[in-house]
């Protein structure tokens, strides 16, 4: 059972995420748009009730970039403040594929955690709201984006929290392409061996990667079977079905991690993307005619928001 009102609110958030990402893709002449189309409902669901994050008192404004961490730079601030203050019982969120950063920023706005004006700093020199975020970027807990490292870092944090007696869980968004990486399977081996159940992973199974459709690059099937064999509790859902997404996050999984495989459509809500013929990783808008077609998609999305 999904508490009343949640699905409606998450539908609004998912539309908002898609619309904001498309707006910025138009503003920048390109961007990681297909990932927003595939994962909008996933992030809306995670921030809209599945994760038990500590609240922020008011939507936060991103700080300017304050330098990288070092012994001589005590001023650098992590992006996790947007996910709420540290609390033993509060959940954490780790975005593993950081080319999804703009989608995360949009989700933070929809969740009331970032001021909408924060996106004005997106991809601006000297801003922390970077195109491919680092741990100082809004909503970022750790240094991810070198694909495959997010899960192991999350395991270290979750293990540390378990040893400290904390009850909060750690949630991740991973991309399906990351399951081509050997290290990810090392991580699942570890999760299983240490019976770690304070970790939940939503995977955007959009079957796309940088070089094109995954089946033309390196297939990963049967992903659910592999994960189950590695000891995970696996649920496969329609990644645009808000009810299924929410309910999967509530599945019991004692002694093992939860993996929600979200089968998604990378062109969902922006049908113009289908014209790219499967080269979906990064959209570069080439000419005015193409721009007008994406502007028409934006108008449709905005009309849908009423």
């Amino acid at each position, binding site marked *: 059972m999904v508490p009343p009102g949640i699905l409606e609110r998450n539908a609004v958030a998912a539309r908002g995420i898609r619309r904001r990402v498309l707006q910025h893709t138009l503003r920048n002449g390109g961007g990681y748009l297909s990932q927003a189309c595939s994962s909008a409902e996933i992030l809306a669901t995670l921030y809209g009730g599945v994760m038990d994050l500590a609240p922020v008192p008011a939507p936060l404004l991103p700080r300017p970039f304050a330098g990288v961490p070092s012994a001589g730079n005590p001023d650098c601030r992590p992006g996790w403040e947007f996910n709420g203050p540290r609390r033993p019982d509060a959940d954490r969120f780790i975005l593993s594929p950081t080319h999804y950063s703009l989608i995360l920023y949009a989700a933070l706005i929809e969740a009331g955690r970032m001021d909408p004006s924060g996106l004005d700093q997106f991809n601006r020199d000297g801003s922390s709201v970077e195109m491919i975020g680092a741990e100082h970027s809004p909503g970022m807990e750790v240094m991810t984006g070198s694909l495959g490292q997010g899960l192991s870092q999350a*395991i270290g944090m979750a293990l540390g929290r378990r040893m400290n007696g904390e009850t909060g869980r750690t949630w991740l968004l991973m991309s399906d392409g990351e399951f081509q990486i050997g290290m990810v399977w*090392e991580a699942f*081996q570890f999760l299983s061996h240490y019976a770690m159940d304070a970790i939940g992973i939503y995977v955007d199974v959009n079957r796309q990667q940088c070089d094109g459709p995954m089946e033309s690059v390196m297939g990963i099937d049967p992903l659910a079977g592999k994960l189950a064999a590695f000891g995970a509790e696996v649920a496969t859902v329609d990644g645009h079905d808000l009810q299924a997404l929410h309910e999967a996050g509530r599945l019991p999984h004692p002694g093992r991690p939860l993996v929600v495989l979200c089968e998604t459509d990378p062109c969902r809500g922006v049908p113009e993307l289908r014209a790219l013929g499967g080269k979906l990783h990064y959209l570069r808008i080439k000419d005015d005619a193409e721009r007008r077609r994406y502007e028409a998609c934006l108008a449709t999305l905005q009309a849908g928001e009423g």
Partner: protein
Amino acid sequence: MEILAQVHARTLVDFGARHPEVRVLTADLSNSCEAGPFRDVYRDRFIPCGISEQNMLSIAGGLAREGFVPLVHTFGVFIYRRALDQIAMSVAYPNLPVKMFAFLPGILTPGGATHQAIEDVAVMRALPNLTVLDIGDATEVEGALDVACSVPGPVYVRMLRGEVPRLFPADEPMRLDRPRVLATGTDVLVASSSICTEEALRATAVLRAKGVSVGHVHVSTMKPFTPARVADAIAAARFGVVTMENHTVVGGLGTIVAEAMVECGVARPLRRLGLQDTFAHGASRAYLAREYGMDAMALVRQVESLVGDRLGITEDDLAAVRIEAVHSAAKAEAM
């Protein structure tokens, strides 16, 4: 010379008693890296990761974020070669207090090229936020945990195991960024590190007996390295400087000393002993040291070349040298 066994194994257990925040992580080489006794005493603070170093290093980063001090133990090659990206992004970038204890530096092992960490100083020194230590004797093995954990960020330690000689007095522990001045001299300066310092002591004793004024510094902190700490010793050596390292001459101690010379504006001829931009192979340490010109006789030949004189030193002369623990010739503060 006193020879001690399992020094790190004992030190690690003692350190664990005083530091409840430490966790020992291993990758199937626990006993080979002297972590076995810690495992037996502190089983709930021991985290075996299996043969999965990339996962282990990123997990170490996550643990450090929660207030723990992970002490990663495995062979050096499996740290900096296998898991470099994980070290760079999960550990070094966030400047987390992960301490990497890297065993089998250089030509210490007959395990051959797969097990010999020969370019790790060069690789790890290039990573921002990293501190790099190169342990030279039992006293430094005893002090490595204290020094590594006194640094708030990540530390890579080239570690010695098994039977280790005590070259430096037990009451003169290693200090961060403080080369040990073992002797001062006006003809030649020898700068050595790791197991090469024992070989260098063998040679310098005989060279001195032949009338050569040889200065000698032992370097155990490869980064940070403050050039001014060796500037006077370099300037005092009128014929030049010989570096001697258990590592390739590219990017290690030889490079560090060369950088120091240039930064201090002290130009001297520099000869770099070590692996001459080559991989090694599986054989005994003594065999490899001779084959690759990293033994006492190799140092003698370089000094002869610098001073322009054949000194008539034989292998027998070198073998007869009895090495005792050497006090620092100068107070560290004065370096």
